[in-house]
């Protein structure tokens, strides 16, 4: 069973539907015992970092996510949920993340040409690092996924498993042992996204 962490941020309808589509047994939950009982955990998130991090902290689930990740349970952070895996974010001030992956979340604006629009919205091609991470075993280099974000993870070269080109090389996905993160939305990325979720669901501890 997969636990989708519900801490009052974002719309979990599509994520739940996409997991149902690939036959995965998933629940949307805000209960600590569900996270502990689950085989895998997905940490979603949209909106501003500070607000989401505060809500996760207020729910008390941050400690459970860290505890379960450190115990080896497969974890997937999506979009802002991926950004929260890092040490800190510089979105409107400096904020502490979960510290599961070393790196910082920074504004893309100073790093990309002024002519490009922010947020980075739309379908962009993935460049997969070699060797290809198991999360991407069902997809190919150059496959497109759907992004919506203005900040991105930096100083995390060792954990980076995919990038996307948007006037600069943006971190698209990261992994460190059992902890994974996708900046893009696999639940909105058509068949490619479903194949990524399927690969995550097939991971074992």
């Amino acid at each position, binding site marked *: 069973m997969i636990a989708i962490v519900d801490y009052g941020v974002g719309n979990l309808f599509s994520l739940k539907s996409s997991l149902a589509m690939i036959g995965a047994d998933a629940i949307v939950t805000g209960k600590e015992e569900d996270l502990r009982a689950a085989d895998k955990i997905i940490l979603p998130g949209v909106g501003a970092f500070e607000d989401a991090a505060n809500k996760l902290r207020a729910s008390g689930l941050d400690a459970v996510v860290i505890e379960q990740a450190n115990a080896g349970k497969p974890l997937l952070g999506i979009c802002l949920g991926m950004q929260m895996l890092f040490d800190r974010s510089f979105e409107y001030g400096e904020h502490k993340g979960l510290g599961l992956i070393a790196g910082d979340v920074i504004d893309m604006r100073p790093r990309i040409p002024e002519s490009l629009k922010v947020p980075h919205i*739309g379908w*962009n091609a993935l460049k997969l690092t070699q060797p290809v991470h198991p999360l991407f075993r069902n997809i190919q280099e150059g496959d497109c996924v759907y992004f919506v974000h203005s900040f991105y993870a930096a100083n995390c070269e060792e954990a980076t498993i995919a990038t996307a080109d948007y006037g600069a090389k943006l971190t698209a996905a990261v992994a460190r042992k059992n902890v994974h993160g996708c900046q893009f939305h696999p639940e909105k990325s*058509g068949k490619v996204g479903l194949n990524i979720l399927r690969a995550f669901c097939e991971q074992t501890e």
Partner: protein
Amino acid sequence: MITKRIIPCLDVKDGRVVKGVNFLGLNDVSDPVKLGQYYSDNGADELVFYDITASAEGRALFTDILTHVAETIFIPLTVGGGINTLDDFDRVLKCGADKVSVNSGAIRNPALIGEAAKRYGDQCVVLSVDVKRVVGQFRVFAKGGREDTGLDALTWIKRGVEQGAGEIVLNSIDTDGVKRGFDLEMLSAVCELVNVPVIASGGAGGIPDFVTLFTALPKVDAGLAASIFHFGEVQIKDLKQALHEAGIPVRRV
């Protein structure tokens, strides 16, 4: 590099997809769930579902259909039509919409754009504008293109973006249904004005119109059309192939 998006628009009335020419004379086309799935499987980058129902029963049916669509289609969904309040945003977002398009509701209550952007984020708020030339001015029309609001379109769009609209759908009433190409002049004026994604709508008659659109106006992010896709006059796969051959980045499936 980010790809140019191709977006079929499904106008839904009483549970069925319809498409008018110049907003008049609606024809029944198909089942919204099946048509949505077809597009999703065949290369559409996003879908727009537009609720053109007036009755409360029709609205409930639309919301029901939207839920079915969102359960089976895993590409971004934008929903518009009858969005007048934050409760309307809530209603469609809970059914799986990713973005909400406002039009007449924002004209009646411009504060809606800012309130929605604050609650759901700029990326969630799409400002859809129906524009027609009136005595040399780009004029905003309301109520599905039937009513001249007297508003200058460029002023209105700029204000909308300042309030937090994260994307503009520019529908030219002058070219809509005519099938002789997008309104490049109008689109160019809007692209120079704002730095959020601009979606071109109205006038696509065939593949060359999309090639011209993205070649002439590299700042346009997406092309939206309805009948040419619904009636099979343009297959999205062929369109993407042609765009790719013209050197325009597209997502190919």
